[in-house]
């Protein structure tokens, strides 16, 4: 499974790790919805660290679309919140 950390790069991640990334992602979104900034930053940070630690960076001469794209590592709470109201990180 190929995962891109937006603005950073692509990683090849074992399939069983994707479940952990997804679980953190869902919890991070729940934190956003609950308005809990500290919890969001913590969970999102864990998610990025997990991908960096467990994933193998994709060689530069390999060209693949990603299966999963996670937001940029420096995504702020406000940006994450806006992401769900349509005017987020990437313009529609």
């Amino acid at each position: 499974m190929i995962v891109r950390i937006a603005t950073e790069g692509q990683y090849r991640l074992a399939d069983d790790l994707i479940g952990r990334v997804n679980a953190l992602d869902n919890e991070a979104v729940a934190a956003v919805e609950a308005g809990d900034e500290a919890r969001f930053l913590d969970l999102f940070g864990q998610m990025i660290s997990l991908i960096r630690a467990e994933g193998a960076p994709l060689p530069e001469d390999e060209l693949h679309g990603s299966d999963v794209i996670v937001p940029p590592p420096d995504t702020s709470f406000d940006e994450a919140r806006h992401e769900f109201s349509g005017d987020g990180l990437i313009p529609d």
Partner: protein
Amino acid sequence: MAGLSGRLSTVVKAKISKMLDRAEDPSETLEYSYQKQMELLQNVKKGLADVVTAKKRLQLQSQKLEQQVVKLDTQARQALAAGNEALARTALERKSAVQAELQGLDGQIAELESQQQSMTDNQAKLQSKIEAFRSKKEVIKAQYSAAEAQVRISEAATGVGEEMADVGLAMQRALDKTENMRARAQAVDELEKAGAFEDLTQLGAGEDDIDRQLKELSSGSQVDGELERMKAELAAGGSSAGELGSGGEERQA
């Protein structure tokens, strides 16, 4: 597709895919997309130059503010030695405001530094991907049937397209941040122009607008503490205090 239940990721991926879908069929417009890649590369280089310029400006300001901190500290001591506690307090209030500004600047310089690094990395990565795409394209054309080649080139083009979208996103974020910092640098310049960092000894006795603003910026208790510390230091080293006192009196002239 498996593994796409994570919602933040899903939203981002959907948006990047939408950006890519807007492009024409990549296999039909290879030359066009290669040209686009080169344009993006040029933009990255320009963006990088912007970041470097902004960083240099902030570094210059930071140096100026550091000198200012030293000067205000000296002036506070001189004023105190001359028995002018009110002036010493004003100097310390300014020092505290300048220090707060300095801290902000240093943080921003560090951030620009890392922006610059990641943009340089991105630029190198994009260049490698473009090269890989160009050579892969030829190899694929030579090795596969037309239909198969189209599928494979399409997949490679998706990879490059995603990379381009991502580098574009990274650059946009870096430039947005640089823009914010430029605004801050401008604010510091304006404060300076308004005389906020002027030599205290050249100021009149009356409290002006800048003083009031600076007082709001600086925390009173921090200034109180520092004033007490300075007094104690002066009391401990009596001889040097007398020497500095003449500096304080010059101000009165």
